[in-house]
Structure formats: C-alpha cells, structure tokens
C-alpha cells in the first residue's frame, strides 16, 4: 500500500503552492487580485457562526492582501484565477520577516546579559536588537522584491466551483 502511494507522487514536478484569487481591478496591462480565504478558517465547520471573522481576522483582511500581476491572459473584473507561488518563497519570506529580527533580538539580549547581567539592560538591548533586525529585514525584503522572488505567478483560470480545498 505504502509503495503505491509513494509512486503516485511526482517529486520531479516543480514545487508550487497554488491559491485562488478574484480579479478586482484592471489597470492597463496589470490586474489587481484579492486572494480567496485559505484552508483553515474557511473550511471550519463553525465558520458561519464564528465571531472572530468580523473582528479583523482572515475574512475581513483579505482585501488588504490584494496584489498585482501581468494581464497576459486578458483577465476581466470578477474572473477567478489560480495563481502560484514557488514553495521556497514562503520559507524565504518567513526567514526574512521573522527569523532575522528574532535572531538579532536574541543575540543582543544574550550579549547584554553576558556583559552586564542586569534585567533592565538586557530588556533594552533586546528591544534595540529587534529594531535592528527589522531594519535588516526591510533591506532584504526590498532586494527579494526587486529580484521578483516574491511575485505570484498566473497559472490558469479557475474552474467553476473550484476552491482552495478542492
């Protein structure tokens, strides 16, 4: 059973995370897309009754996550498309946004603790380390964006009724 399951996976295929988004605006040769809700909240059995949806969680914030792609496929407002992000992009993005500030924060805190051994000094150094790390993140994120590493790619038009979970 296990053998057949493993052979069904094509590991040579390009690793790509897929998502579904809706076209909300067309500007020249670019289109603005808003991603549809992901797999966790949307598929929850109590999603319709969940109070957290209205107070700034996933559903109400999707509009802030709108993004732009080239309109090579002549997309129109209201169309649903499948877009892709290379799998290693999420890891790169997570490292840039979270791991770097966390590392500088801990390094600064550990250094202050070793040098002065006082909680207030360690606290101040930790906050300073966090600020420095966020600055480094900003520079690195700018480079990633310039290189186009973070850009989503248009894959195809979504089939009627197709969802992130289907």
């Amino acid at each position: 059973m296990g053998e057949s399951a493993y052979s069904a996976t094509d590991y040579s295929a390009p690793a790509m995370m897929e998502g579904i988004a809706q076209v909300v605006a067309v500007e020249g040769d670019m289109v603005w897309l808003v991603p549809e809700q992901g797999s966790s909240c949307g598929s929850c059995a109590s999603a319709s009754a969940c109070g957290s949806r209205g107070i700034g969680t996933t559903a109400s914030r999707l509009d802030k996550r709108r993004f732009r792609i080239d309109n090579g496929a002549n997309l129109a407002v209201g169309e649903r498309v499948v877009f892709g992000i290379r799998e290693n992009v999420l890891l790169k993005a997570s490292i840039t946004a979270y791991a770097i500030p966390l590392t500088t924060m801990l390094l600064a805190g550990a250094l202050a603790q070793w040098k002065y051994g006082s909680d207030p000094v360690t606290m101040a150094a930790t906050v300073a380390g966090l600020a420095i790390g966020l600055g480094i993140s900003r520079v690195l994120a700018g480079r990633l964006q310039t290189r186009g590493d973070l850009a989503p790619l248009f894959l195809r038009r979504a089939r009627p009724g197709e969802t992130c979970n289907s």
Partner: protein
Amino acid sequence: MKEYLLLMFTSALVNNVILGRFLGLCPTMGVTTRLDAAVGMGMATTFVMTVAALAGWTINTLLLEPFGLGYLRTITFILIIASTVQFTEMVVRKVSPSLFQLLGIYLPLITTNCAVLGVALLLVADKMSFISSVLFALGSALGFSLVLVMFAGLRERLALMDVPRLFAGPPIGFIVVSLLALAFMGFSGMGAS
C-alpha cells in the same frame, strides 16, 4: 550557558506545548494540511510567542507585581498578545507589502492560540528571569513549530494512504497526534531536574 540550553531543550521537547501540555491543538489540526502552511504558521507563532513573552514579563514585573494587580494577569496577557499580533502585522506590512501578502494570513489566527497565552502565564508562574523567560518562550515556540511541521509532513503522506472511511480526515489525524505524543514522552527522562 548550560542552564539556558537545558531550559530551551526542556521547553521544546520534554514539555512540548502541543504534545506535553496539550495547548494549541486548534492550529495543529487546522493549519497542518499543507507543509508550507505549517512552516508559515510555525515561524509566525515563534516570533509572536517570543515577543509576547518579552512584553508579558516586562508588564508583569514593572506594573502588575509592584502594584499588587496580579488578579489582572490573564486579561492583561490576552491584551498583550492581541497587541503583539497587531504590532507584528503592522511591522511586516510596513517592512514589505509583498511579505505581508504571503505571510499576513497566519497572523490573526495566532491571537486565539492558547499556547501563546499558556507560555506567557507559565513563565510568570515559574518566576523566571528576563533572559530565561525569552529563551523559555523561544524553546516552546520552536517545539510548537517542530510538531506542526512533523505533523504536516505526516498528514501529506496520510492524504495518499488508503485509510478506512471511518477514520479518514480528523480521526486519523488525532490518532497520529497521540502516537507522536507517546513518542515525545521518550524525552521526559532527559530533562534537567
């Protein structure tokens, strides 16, 4: 130094927040259907848990304890966690809108993650020093992320398996989590006493 390493090891593996303390089971079941989602959620939780521990320790030491406001601890920590999530979201958005598009989806889900509140309350209950608190939170968060990633990998394989209909989906997921918890019990003899 050895004391700090042991603290991190213990919080990550011996007293793992998910498999040892049974906290944060919602994201464990909800965000582990895909490995990439588990990595994103794990990294975001690690950041928020560590920063919330830093803020929680500071508020508790400088405000709650000196003024005898210990009875407000739980509600204060909930406020701190919500503020930390908001702060992180704002910062990530400011640092890079592209990163926010990729990672922003995981942040609001952390507000209701009981593991973050649990860790903040535990480090205050244990009367840890500042640096110990931060390392305890970081170790707990790394343990949390490790389990998310392991479980997501297992679930991706389970999706290809021929599971009886009665057990398909969440039931087999819970059975796998319980087996993982049993495996993690093997670390319990290795903690510093």
